[in-house]
Each structure stands twice: as C-alpha cells, then as structure tokens.
C-alpha cells in the first residue's frame, strides 16, 4: 500500500535536512530523489496542489537566468515555488515542491532532456522554450534528439497551455507552426548583428528542406532573422520584440521592449545581448501568466544576477567577476561580453569534466576564445582538465610562457588574486562544477553565502 502523500513529504524533507546537516552541500535534490524513489507519482500530486499551476522554462542556455528574471517579475503577484539553485531534473522540481509550503505558482527551469517528462507530470499552464545549442553531446546526444523530445512535449501539452517560443531559433520557432496562439519573441536590431555565423552555429540548415539559411541578421550563435532561399521557411512573425539595443560593457544592456500591450524602455543590470533574449523570454512568459507590462518592466529593471551565471563577488580589496561557461554558444557570449567591457590582461579559466560539465571536453575547441588574445597577457588554466585548456590557448597562438597550469582550483584562485592589483577585478570563467567549487571556496572565506541559504 502506498504511503499517504503527507507521510512521504515528511520523510523526504527530513532527508534533505539530514543531508545539509551532514555537510553534503545544499541537499537540494536529496528530498526529491527520495520522494521519486518512494512514489514517482507524488510529484504530479504535489504540483496539482499549486492553486495557480506551474510554468516551465527550458533552453540550452539562459534557463536559470530567465527563470530568475521571471521570478523577479512575478514575485509580487504570487508566492512562488522556484528551483532557483539550478536543480532542474524531475528530482529537483520535486524537492522544490516539497520545500515550497504555501506556494501558489510553480516556476521551474527544466533540463532540456527532462522537459518531456516534467511537462507530462506537471501539466503546466505555460511553457517557455528559449534555444537549442550543441551541449554536452556525451550526455544529451545529438541536438536533433533533444529537439524531437521538445516536439513531442509540445504536442502533448494541454490545449489551454500557453506556449512561449524564441522565434529567432529555427528549431524552436518551428514549434509555433501547429500552435497558432503561441507567443513568439525575438530580436530585431541589425546594429547588434554579428558579421557572420559563428563557428559553432548549429541549426544553420533549413529545418524543413536542409538548405543553408540566409541570415538577414545573426545575433547569438544561430539565433537571428533567417530565411530559407529554397523553401521559404523563415522566422515566424514576432509578437514580443527587442529593438534599439544598447550594450554597456560589463555593466548593463538597455533595449526597447515592444509587446502587444505597449512599449517600455528596459535597462538590465546584467550585460550582453544574450541577456536581452533571457529578458524577452521572461517578459513573454510573465505576460502569458497575467503580469502587466509595468510589472514586467519593473521586475526586469530590478533584476541583478542569477546564481553563478554572472556574479560579482567582493573579496577583500578585489572583486571576482564570475561568468559560467558550459558550451560553445554560451561561452562565446561570455567572451563577447567580457571583450565588450575591455579585454582583460589576466583571466582564470576553469575546466572540469564531471558529468555535469560534460565528460567530453572537446567543446572548448569550438569556443571562439580568440578575441581575448588581443589583450590577455596571462592565462591561469585550472580544473581537472587544465592542461587541455592550456593547449586550446597555446594552439590559438598564446606563448606557452604566458600560460600557467594550476589544476587545483583554490591555488589557481589565489594565484589570480595575487596577480590582481588592489581595487581591480579578476575575471573567472568556470565550468559548472568548477563554479560550484569556487563559490564554496570564497564562501568558506566568508565572502558569499552558500546558495541554499539564498532561496527565496
């Protein structure tokens, strides 16, 4: 006989507390994993208790930031159950549901591969799909495989569910074909376009006929204004658009947000064109959930940073600027953002190869690190695959003598700080598990609180 839901919940919550007490990190997925083992269907029933339902956000890049922006917009309207520490598999969603007593609305970032199952269980009232880039092929398999999962998930959505799509991504925009009510967002500002498609651009062949797309403008990776010269497949009409984009180095980006409800000028306290995409996704989703345009603009203006994605941490007389890198498209944007703020003379780049980072490190060769070489006088390569990263820069033309290989993260961090003048900022580009470890190191020195204490 299955345990009553209440008993399962109590059991699972206790496990999470024990995990934290035992010093095993955040314990953010422990209760969910346990609940999952005891009764997989309990997740469905927990979600069904949310009076305002659930909204899901998925994308290769930007899902954590998009969810954090949406939370900032929506937090005044409803009490949220939000997996803001990035635990985005079914177990992470379950843990968040367990923890969120009194929550009214579920707001979940969801791993790309887990989306079909999470959507089937939660029966969301809104789904926001941002982009698909090549990412951890050893874990996710081919892009086409993930895209097929998304197509199936969208077909299986409840008829009344709102669908929010990035029209600038050919694979994602195509999902609007059979959902006439879908909200499609995109960028329309050729002054921000890249001169050509990046090396790592993925969906550059027509999703319908295989012909290379013509791009009127390519913004981030293969995201842009595309048209197939053979069959005419093109970016769908946009209903939420960013125009007149102004990039302000490492500090901010401003743009005009145009929606069916009106127009607002938005200034984000985080940099980069990719954050304009995140803001468009969050604005469109929040709008679909009933937020007013004023709430959207105010929430976006208030937003500062999502966990580990782009964080400034004061460490005594110096600052760390940490930008997560995890796949070619995302790392390219991190590099572009840094270079926009002025090429640094020193950087610490951390490459780990745990499952969460991707065991296959070949992706670093697809990243366009080259713009950094113009001013980078010293690289500290760290992490378990530090030597591999050093080779990436050596074969890009950096003198071997300018590269220090220090696999131990803490020693590498200290070396970076030692080389950083007082009052200056040290650029850190870590992969996912390296980011967690580096945050832990600075946290233990009292400079940043552990992430599970920051949960809203």
């Amino acid at each position, binding site marked *: 006989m299955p345990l009553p839901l209440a008993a399962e919940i109590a059991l699972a919550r206790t496990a999470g507390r024990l995990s934290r007490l035992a010093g095993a990190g955040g314990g953010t997925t422990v209760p969910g994993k346990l609940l999952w083992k005891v009764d997989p269907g309990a997740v469905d029933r927990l979600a069904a208790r949310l009076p305002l339902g659930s909204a899901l956000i998925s994308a290769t890049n930007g899902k954590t930031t998009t969810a954090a922006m949406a939370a900032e917009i929506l937090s005044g309207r409803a009490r949220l159950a939000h997996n803001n520490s990035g635990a985005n598999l079914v177990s992470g969603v379950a843990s968040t549901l367990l923890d969120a007593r009194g929550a009214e609305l579920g707001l979940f970032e969801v791993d790309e591969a887990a989306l079909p199952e999470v959507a089937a269980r939660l029966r969301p009232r809104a789904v926001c799909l941002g982009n698909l880039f*090549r990412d951890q*092929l*050893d874990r996710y*398999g*081919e*892009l*086409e495989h993930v895209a097929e999962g998304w197509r199936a998930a969208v077909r299986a959505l409840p008829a009344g569910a709102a669908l929010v799509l990035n029209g600038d991504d050919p694979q994602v925009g195509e999902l609007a074909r059979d959902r006439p009510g879908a909200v499609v967002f995109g960028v329309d500002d050729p002054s921000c376009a890249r001169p050509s498609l990046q*090396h790592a651009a993925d969906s*550059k*062949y027509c999703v319908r006929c*295989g012909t*290379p797309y013509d791009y009127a403008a390519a913004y981030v990776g293969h995201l842009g204004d595309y048209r197939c010269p053979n069959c005419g497949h093109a970016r769908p009409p946009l209903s939420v658009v960013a125009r007149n984009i102004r990039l302000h180095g490492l500090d901010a980006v401003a743009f005009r947000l145009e929606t069916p409800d009106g127009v607002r000028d938005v200034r984000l306290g985080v940099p980069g064109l990719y954050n304009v995409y995140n803001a468009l996704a969050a604005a469109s989703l929040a709008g679909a959930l009933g937020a007013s345009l004023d709430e959207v603009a105010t929430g976006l203006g208030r937003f500062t940073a999502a966990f580990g994605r782009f964080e400034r941490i004061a460490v005594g007389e110096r600052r760390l600027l940490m930008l997560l890198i995890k796949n070619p498209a995302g790392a390219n944007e991190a590099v572009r953002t840094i270079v926009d703020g002025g090429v640094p003379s020193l950087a610490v780049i951390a490459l780990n*190869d745990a499952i969460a980072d991707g*065991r*296959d*490190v*070949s*992706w*670093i*060769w*697809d990243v366009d690190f080259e713009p950094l070489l113009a001013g980078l006088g010293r690289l500290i390569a760290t992490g*378990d*695959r530090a*030597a*591999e990263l*050093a*080779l*990436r820069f*050596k*074969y*890009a*033309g950096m003198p*071997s003598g300018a*590269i220090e*290989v220090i696999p131990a993260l803490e020693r590498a961090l200290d070396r970076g700080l030692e080389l950083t003048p007082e009052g200056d900022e040290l650029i850190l580009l870590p992969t996912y598990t390296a980011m967690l470890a580096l945050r832990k190191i600075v946290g233990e020195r009292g400079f940043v609180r552990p992430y599970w204490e920051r949960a809203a």
Partner: protein
Amino acid sequence: MKIVVGHLYPDYLNIYADRGNIAVLARRAAWRGHELEVHTVSVGDPVEPGAHDLLYVGGGQDREQALVAEDLVAKSDGVRAAVDGGAALLAVCGGYQLMGRSYRDFHGGDLPGIGLFPLETVAGETRMIGDVLLECELEPGVVRTLAGFENHAGRTRLDAGAEALGRVVAGFGNDGDSGFEGCRVGRAVGTYLHGPLLPRNPWFADWVLAQALAHRLGEAPVLDPLGDELEQQAHAVSALRARSRGGKR
C-alpha cells in the same frame, strides 16, 4: 614547404571540434618552417587528383551526415584516387564511417560510403560514449598510445585482414567487442577518437604531418622534436580517464 590540406565539408562535419585538429597541424607545421594551406572542399566541389597532400574529414550529427552523403558518393573516385596517389587522409568519427563501404542507420536505411576503408558500419541501439585509450604500432616495434573520447552509435566491422589503427586498452573502440579501433590503409587513417584527437596526441599529429609531407617528398621526413610538456600532461589525464571510466555502458 607548403602542405595543402583538403578539408571536406567543414561547414557540415565539425561536431567534435575538428578545427582543433586543423589548428594543431597548422602550428606544428609552422614551428618546423612549413606552411599548412587549408582548402575547403564542400558540396559540389570536386577532389582533384594530386591537389592535396592531406585530406581531412570530421564528424557530424546524423542530420548533417545525411545532408552530405549524396555529394560524398560523387567524390568517391576523387578521394580514392588521391589516396592511391600517395596523399594522406585523416577521417574522424562520422567521417571515418563515411570512408567505409556503407553505414546502416538504426531504421535500416543505408548511406553508401566512399569505400576507401575495408569496413562496414551498422548503428546499434545504444551509443558507445566515453574516454578511450589505444595502443598503436604504426611502425614495426614502435608502440605508442592514443588518448581520446568516443561517442558513436555505429558498430564498425573491419574486413578480415584489414589493419586497425590500434588495440583498445580502455574504451569501446570500433564495435565494443573486437578489441580494435580505427582503420589504416597506408597513409590513410580513420578513427572514432575525437577530443579533439591531435592536441593531446602530438606524436600522432606529427605522424600525420610526416605522411602529408611524404606525398611531396616521396618518403616521410623526420620532424624536429618540439617541447610537448603541456601535450604530455593533457595526454596523461586523458589516458587516466580512459583507464578509470572508459568503455562503461
């Protein structure tokens, strides 16, 4: 000396950082006073006999591989003639499969290959993913290791008597049970190993360069040694990974 490389379908077959392999060849050639000149050979471009010292073909996702398959058949005489004429060839992952006789996908559809390597590939139900370590003996008596990463659904079977690139020390290799990886026909080598392959295996990068130079010189020259400390470090970590976690399903 100029070394001319024909890079087949770089815009389609580039999934595992194939440009890393090209960058390594270019730098290591330049450090010896040679110049690597890379020409794109894409859909519709012919492979002119004698035009290239080295042909390179990387891997793609199934979708991209299907997009070039038809064009590849049109190139098969040109590629075979180039290799018969002494050009070197390096084919990685999907490119390796396409250089065999045929590739049968999971749904039973056949993609014809170029037929350079005496092998056939059939897709299996599960992918073979992980770190790999090989032991190679490209010259009699000289045993060296190659470390890389593999990610393939294809099970590649060599014909009886065909020469493999190496023996699997850790990892899956061609098919997960023969104990062999890759294929070699003279100066042409195909392999599943990416990572990319050449940065962490500098001896093999130099072997490929020497084979390309042999097309010009008649025989493979001895290249000056380089300071490869970083490369050896990367090789050691990769080899360790293969021994501890390669070949696990």
